[in-house]
Structures are given as C-alpha cells and as structure tokens.
C-alpha cells in the first residue's frame, strides 16, 4: 500500500517538474527569437512596470526584463549542464579509480585531495578559482568544475567499492578479462548510473551556484543576460522598480524547483521501482 502511494507520489513529482521545466526551456528557447526586443540593447522607455507590452517590465536601460530573463535562463542552464557533465565524467572516473585502487599510493593521494576539496564551502573555493581565472563564462565553468568533480568522486568511490565486490565482477576476473575491460565494461557502467541520479540533484545546486557567483560579481558579467547578475543589477532599484530583480529571481527559483522535483522524483522512482 505505502509502496504504491509513494510510487504515485514520485511519478507526480517527476511529471510536475518535467512540465515546469519544459515550459521554462520552451520560453527560453522562443523568447529571444520571437520577441522583437533585444536582450542586450535597450530600445524601450526605462523602468516601466510590468504591462501587456513588457510582461516583466523594463529595466533602467530600457531592456525588456522578460526577454532578458529567459535569455539568461538559457545561458544558466547551458552552463550548468556543461559544468555538471564535465565534473560528472571526471569525478566518476577518478572516483572509480579510487574505489578500485584499494590501498595503493595513488588512490590514497586522490582520497586526500577529494576529501580536502569537499571540506571547503563550495562557493568559497569557487570564488578562489574565479579570482585567478577572472569573472567570465570560462571563469565560472572552471570554478564549478574544479570544485565540483570531487563530490562526484566521493559518490563514485563509495559505489565502486561496492560494485568491485559484486560477483559479476569476480566472474569477469575469473574469466581472465584484463583490468581495463573489467573497469570499463563492468564496473564503470554500474557506477555511472548512480552517479547520474546524483548529478540530477547537483544540477539544482550548480544552477544556483552559477547565479550566486554572478550575483556576487564574480561570474558572468553584465551586459550579458544572466539571472544572478540581473538580480544584482536590480538591487539598488529594489524600492522603485522591484520587477527588475524579482522576476529573474522567480524564474531562477522556478527553474531550480522544476529540476529539484525531477531529481527527487527520479531518485524515488529508481529506489522503489
């Protein structure tokens, strides 16, 4: 009984999340194309409250906040997917090596690196990387990847240690498969599926982190439309023109929520299915 109701819950969460995400993706794909407003150059009267012509109003430079917000969402999502993808692949590979390595010196060293990177507050270490690379798209990407891979490595390390003990891996060894074959064809694919579920939930954290860095002025810089940077830009006008900050914030929260729902639903579905 409880199992069934949970499964239904998970399905519902996944569905609502997916619908919400589809809407956001659709809007961010279409808004810059269909709208006549330019996301970077202002052509309308500045600081106009939301109306039929400008759904989210206009900012201090006369740019349409709706078009800008969804152009920004597109950028944030793409950055997040790339960052998560790269850290997922790198981290999972390293973690798998660590999990297989047992007590070798290499895996001992990697363990140390992974644990000490994870000891830091994520955003703080990311800020450190941005300091060197510079506040820019490559800066944000390398900050997130350099600090993020270690979390996947931790997940993959634990999972690999379990898989490496499974009987199908023992069978593979008994059949005389080489180390790399055992690793690539038998251990890695099974570690990967769990890491993927983890990556979905990380996507939320990473989107928020990208926006956070840009909000702090240590990420994507204006005039490029980016949600965190937009919220930051609108801050000083909060009392006079709340929509400049609040709408991008709402879009960011909705995007994060939709992915969160998908991730939670997916996790529960795979756990109870």
């Amino acid at each position, binding site marked *: 009984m409880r199992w069934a109701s949970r499964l239904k819950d998970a399905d519902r969460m996944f569905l609502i999340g997916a619908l919400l995400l589809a809407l956001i993706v659709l809007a961010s794909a279409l808004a810059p194309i269909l709208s006549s407003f330019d996301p970077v150059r202002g052509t309308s009267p500045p600081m106009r409250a939301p109306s039929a012509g400008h759904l989210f109003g206009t900012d201090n430079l006369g740019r349409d906040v709706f078009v800008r917000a969804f152009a920004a969402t597109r950028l944030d999502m793409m950055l997040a997917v790339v960052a998560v993808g790269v850290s997922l692949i790198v981290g999972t590979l390293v973690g798998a090596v660590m999990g297989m390595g047992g007590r070798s010196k290499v895996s001992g060293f990697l363990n140390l690196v992974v644990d000490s990177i994870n000891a830091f507050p994520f955003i703080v270490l990311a800020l450190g990387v941005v300091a060197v690379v510079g506040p820019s798209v490559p800066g944000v990407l390398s900050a997130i990847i350099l600090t993020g891979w270690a979390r996947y490595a931790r997940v993959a390390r634990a999972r690999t240690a379990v898989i490496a003990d*499974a*009987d*199908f891996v*023992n*069978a*593979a*060894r*008994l*059949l*005389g*498969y*080489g*180390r790399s*074959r055992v690793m690539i*064809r*038998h251990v890695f*694919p*099974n570690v990967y*599926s769990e890491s993927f579920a983890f990556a979905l939930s990380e996507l939320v954290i990473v989107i928020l982190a990208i926006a956070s860095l840009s909000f702090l002025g240590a990420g994507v810089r204006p005039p490029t439309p980016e949600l965190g940077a937009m919220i930051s830009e609108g801050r000083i006008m909060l009392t006079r023109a709340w929509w400049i900050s609040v709408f991008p914030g709402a879009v960011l929260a909705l995007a994060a929520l939709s992915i969160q729902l998908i991730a939670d639903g997916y996790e529960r579905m795979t756990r109870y299915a």
Partner: protein
Amino acid sequence: MTEPIITVADLHVTFATPRGDVPAVRGVDLVVAPGETVGIVGESGSGKSTLARAIVGLVDAQSGSVTVDGRPVRPVHGRRSRADAATVQMIFQDPYSSLNPRQRPIDAVAEAVHVCQRLDRKASRARAMELLGSVGISQAQCRMKTRSLSGGQRQRVSIARALAAEPKILVADEPTSALDQSIAASLLNLLRRIQSERGIAVVFISHDLGVVRYLAHRVYVMKEGVFVEDGVTVDVFEAPRHEYTRTLVSSVPGAGTTVAHGHAPAQE
C-alpha cells in the same frame, strides 16, 4: 589412480575484521579427480564458501596451498592467463549479483567467448547463442534485459558464461539456494548433464544434503573451518561416522530425496 585436478593442502584462510582476525578455514586437505563431482556440505558459517573462493583464487590463503591442474592457483587480482580461465570457473550463490545488470545475456556470454576463445565478434555471438541454447535459454531470452530474467534463468546464463571458457573444473557455490524447489531441481539436472557430457570436475558447495546426495560422487562435511568427515556419498549418508554428520543427516527428513529449503530470495 589418475592425478588429482585439484589438490588443497593444509589450507588456512583468515579474514581481518575490526574485531581482530577471524579464521574461516582452518587447515583443510582436499583432492578432486578429473571429471569427478565433489560435494562440500556444512551449515552457513562453516567456511565452505570461503574454501570455494580460495580454490578459484578469489581469496588469498594465509598458509597452505591450492594446486589446480598442476599449478598453484593464482590470485584473480593479478593478470590471469587464458590457461587460468580455461582451468576453473565459478557459479555464484546470488543470481541477482552474478550478472552485470548492464549486459544482456547474449552480450555477457559473447564477451566471455571473445576473450577466452579469441573468436571475432560474429563468431563469438554465434558460439554464445549455441552455449545459451545448450543451457536452456531461448533465443528471445538471450536478448532480454538481465533485469527481467528470473533467478533460475540468470543462473543458467552464468553457467553458459562459465562454459565459454571451456573450463576443466566448475566450482558451484550454493547455486540453487536462492531458487524455488522445482527450478532448483532442473538446474541440478543441467549441472549433472554438463558434468557427464563434458567430463568437467564439479565442486559443489551446499548446505542442502539432498542436493549434494543427488549430485556428488564424493562428499566432504565441513564444520567450523575443518572437515569432520569425507567419503563416498552413499557411505557418508547411510553410515555417518562423525557426530556432526549424524545430526545433519537426521535433521533433514529423508535426506535421500531432493529437498530444497525455502530460502528467501535475495533482494534485488
């Protein structure tokens, strides 16, 4: 008498645990002749699974030796040669963890054929089909996802995969304990057929006396890491000499027939 294909001499295996070293196998001697089926019985925790793993090289001996086909067994963590793979293969207890969930049966067996027989992709698949057919897996099942196979079907796939190496010895560690009675029986028939057709030596580990009696030519009785009795199956079961064997035999009603214990299937 022919040269034994397995010789285990004074084998000790110890596991390091946080609470100190725990001996699992404490001085065991065992011989298996080519083409012979040897049963090892004992209750859970008696060390029989550890012994099985030591024979194939999955656990390291603390002292003593395991000689298989004239050579000391090599630990699997090193590189195993084709000859090692063609000597001994193993069937595991838990059907749900003994197959890679990411591989279909045909892929799993074809991979084994490809590596062990050095056949090309196409020939490997053809041979794998043949092998799977011979263990009773239909063409459609070969291409099914492993996830959707039953425990019995999985064990059959495992057997086909092991046979791909054309081993001289098959070590089966409680291969039927997770299966329903009728399915277990047909799997035992399959093992018996393979044994007689191919002349493979089989080391069969079980806590189930009925199963061992049905399959084994000779039997060893294991308790707390040592053998307490061994001999030709019929003798051991009809006239047990050791106290422990007597309790084992008497605790199973009609140990002469195939009685599979209703073991809870392992979780997926």
